């Protein structure tokens, strides 16, 4: 079977997954307690007014009609209206997804930049002081909830030391946002040469990205360490050492490259975890992303944003998994031949 057929089969599998996702998101808000019409109508509304509101929102129709309307809306890019912001959910998403994506990517960068070298060094100095330190860091990183490490970081770096900016969003007040290209302020500012905006965006990204990145760094470092150990003990590395190749070449070119293959899978998992972990970190740092939006919507039982959020995370996970599978197929021919 060629790579093309593998890709098509893999893509076709996405369709039933997405249908399942829409069913779940629909059922989610349908089954949740709380009547959205009542929330919309307000505390002094009369029962007649609430009934009228229910009718206008289509809540009096049979379940399958409501589901069909929902899917039809989705197909047109209509995610509904948010009751708590009074705007179409799609507008809110357009504003917030770049913030979440920027934070997620920055955290991923922190996690890989710290996790991979740490894993390699731990493997090279197995059971040495550095390995133990990495182990302790790993346990701490996993064991401490991010809302706590985030608050602690804010307390130390913002309140006590004053080196971090106030948790008031993505840019300092008075710094205007760079022109919209990708929505990621760091990228947009760098591309357009808005240096004050770039500095401010990086400054604001610092604490949340470190908080989130260090939380997921630990499993990454452990994984790199384990595969490195395995590969360093394998025959081809022994052969390389015996041939007298320079250590840098053996470790980085031969060993690490092979050790990174399972890391691709892990990065996919970590990406999903980061999208979910965002919810907490965004709340702590007042980061205007979709995690914050989802929590606020849940509290007010605002159905459209909740559906939209679940749908978005599910679609991202499906796409990331697809990308991981494709990358795997490219990297390792055994997979697509199976």
């Amino acid at each position, binding site marked *: 079977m060629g790579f093309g057929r593998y890709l098509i089969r893999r893509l076709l599998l996405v369709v039933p997954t997405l249908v399942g996702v829409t069913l779940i998101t629909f059922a989610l808000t349908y089954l949740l*307690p*709380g009547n*959205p019409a*009542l*929330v919309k109508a*307000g*505390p*002094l*509304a009369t*029962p007649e*007014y609430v009934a009228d509101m229910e009718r206008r929102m289509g809540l009096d129709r049979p379940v399958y009609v409501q589901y069909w309307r929902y899917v039809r809306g989705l197909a047109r890019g209509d995610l509904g209206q*948010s*009751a*708590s*912001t*009074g*705007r179409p959910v799609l507008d*809110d998403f357009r*504003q*917030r997804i770049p913030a979440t994506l920027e934070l997620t990517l920055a955290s991923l960068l922190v996690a890989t930049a*710290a996790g991979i*070298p*740490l894993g390699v*060094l731990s493997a*090279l*100095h197995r059971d040495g002081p550095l390995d133990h330190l990495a182990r302790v860091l790993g346990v701490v990183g996993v064991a401490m909830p991010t809302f706590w490490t985030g*608050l602690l970081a*804010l*307390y130390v*770096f*913002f*309140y006590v030391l004053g*080196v*971090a*900016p*106030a*948790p*008031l*969003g993505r840019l300092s*007040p008075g*710094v205007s946002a760079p022109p919209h290209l990708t929505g990621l302020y760091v990228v947009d500012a760098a591309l357009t040469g808005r240096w004050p905006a770039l*500095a*401010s965006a*990086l*400054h604001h990204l*610092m604490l949340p990205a*470190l908080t989130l990145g260090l939380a997921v760094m630990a499993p990454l470092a452990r994984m790199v360490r384990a595969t490195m150990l395995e590969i360093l003990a394998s025959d081809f590395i022994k052969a390389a050492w015996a041939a007298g190749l320079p*250590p*840098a070449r053996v470790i980085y070119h031969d060993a690490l490259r092979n050790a990174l293959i399972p890391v691709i899978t892990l990065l996919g998992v970590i990406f999903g975890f980061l999208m979910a972990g965002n919810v907490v970190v965004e*709340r*702590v*740092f*007042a980061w*205007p992303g979709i995690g*914050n*939006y989802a929590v*606020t919507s*849940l*509290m*007010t039982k605002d159905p459209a944003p909740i559906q939209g959020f679940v749908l978005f995370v599910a679609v991202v996970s499906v796409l990331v998994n697809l990308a991981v599978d494709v990358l795997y197929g490219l990297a390792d021919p055994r997979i697509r031949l199976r």
Partner: protein
Amino acid sequence: MQTRIHRRSFLKATVGGAAALSATASARRSAWAQDPRTLVVAWDSDIDTLDPAQFKAIAGYVTIANCYDTPIAWKVRPIEGKPGFARSHPGEFDPAICESWATEADGATLVFKVRRGARFPSGRPVDAHAVKYCFDRGLQSPGYMRIVIPSLLQVSSPDQFEVRDDHTFAIKMKAPGPMAMDIVALSNNAILDPEEVRAHATKEDPWAAEWLKRNLAGIGPYRLTKNEPGVEVVLEATPGYWRPAPYFQRIVFKFVPNEADRVLLLKRKAVDLVAGRPGLTPKNVKALEGEPGLKVFSVPDTTCHFLAINTQKPPFDNVKVRQAVNYAIPIQAILPNVLQGYATPMTTPIPHLTPGHVGTLSPYKYDLDKARKLMREAGVLDKAPIPVELALRVGFVAHEQASVWVQRELEKIGFKVAIVKETDATFRQVAIKGGHTLSFEAWQSWVNDPWYHLLFNFHSKSKFTNASFYSNPALDKLIDDNVNEVNPQKRLAAAREAQKILVEDAVWGFLWYDSWTRVMKADLVGLEKRWDTFERYYAVRRA
């Protein structure tokens, strides 16, 4: 040797990366934080709608209150002993868009003189037609005003709102109304530019409710220049406003969902004020008392916090059981431990700042022997422990903390209490359907009048707001007879009668009247507390 190089490159990669990030850390403090004419407020609310007549989230109300003038306003006077702060008093009003008023027909007609010289941003003059449009719209578009105008302003047809000339507007009520002036002063009566609103009306939406959700079309000290949900709301002073320009040129409301962050921001002086509902829990307010550079403003207020007791559900349909609950509430412990003193113990359902409040009627005080005796007399103890759910809303921290105190005492008199936490939306829905047995509720009457308060909380007709599902024909009659009674002596005597009934019937578990509390930078003065809880920033300035 080699490994040392690796170590170095590792250090370069990680420490270097971190250094690059923190290189910007020395960045100077923000431009706006330094600008003395910008006020930075932290809160956790988004604008859901800007329609003046509708129900809204806090952010919506505050924006309306600062961006729209009303016909008249609740007058505020300086508070003795709290320099720099002011509050309103019952029955006192200030001119706003209407500069004077008079009554005709023995008080059944209110005549307002609309001031000359005020102009909408469109350049059109603010006149009696605009004032009429605001009331016409309130009466006929869905929302809060459609409920209160017919019942409390006694106006059922737009013909009763009369334009006599370009600057004279009259409200012809069916009979004199004791609450009429308060109703006219509500922030919901925002003066709109009728032409502007009509331009956005459609056949299905004759009052442009859809357009007004997201747009402002009137006149006020501030205008909305930015609304980014989840990020910030920015108000800027209106150029050419008919009153002198406010001190603060710009007000920036920052969305900060986490309370611990709000505390840190205040302590670092990165924001001027924390607002919202309530923005800070009593414990954090207490911790900020005495913090250098900050001050706490706290005044008694009319918000009632109470245990709603479902009078239709056994065993609470028995008055003795409800009385027993009131004897078991350890308010003397809740006040210092949960509310840190920023509250007043409740003695009757009518708050202590409301005319007609009688604080001496209640016999209830924490007395477990008395409570057990009442439980025995009620004959419910043979089934003890009686399982009961105590419902509250997630995020209402004072309720969450107080619930544990109440639970412990109720279990001593024969109940088995399960605390149930619900989101605001779920809580409201269950409450309206009568699904709660015991629940923590809060209520504030914007119209500070005993009969407004009694009508919504205890009349059997007030299906959605009578939280205890209380139904007493004698009380219903008392409310019907007095809600529009103009003789002050009669109203107050009847209010005393109503409170006697409610105290004896133990319709609510009495908890507390909240104090209105804000923490701010020490140089801020001019904050005003009106009957609704929404700050107007027009008079706020730095000392």
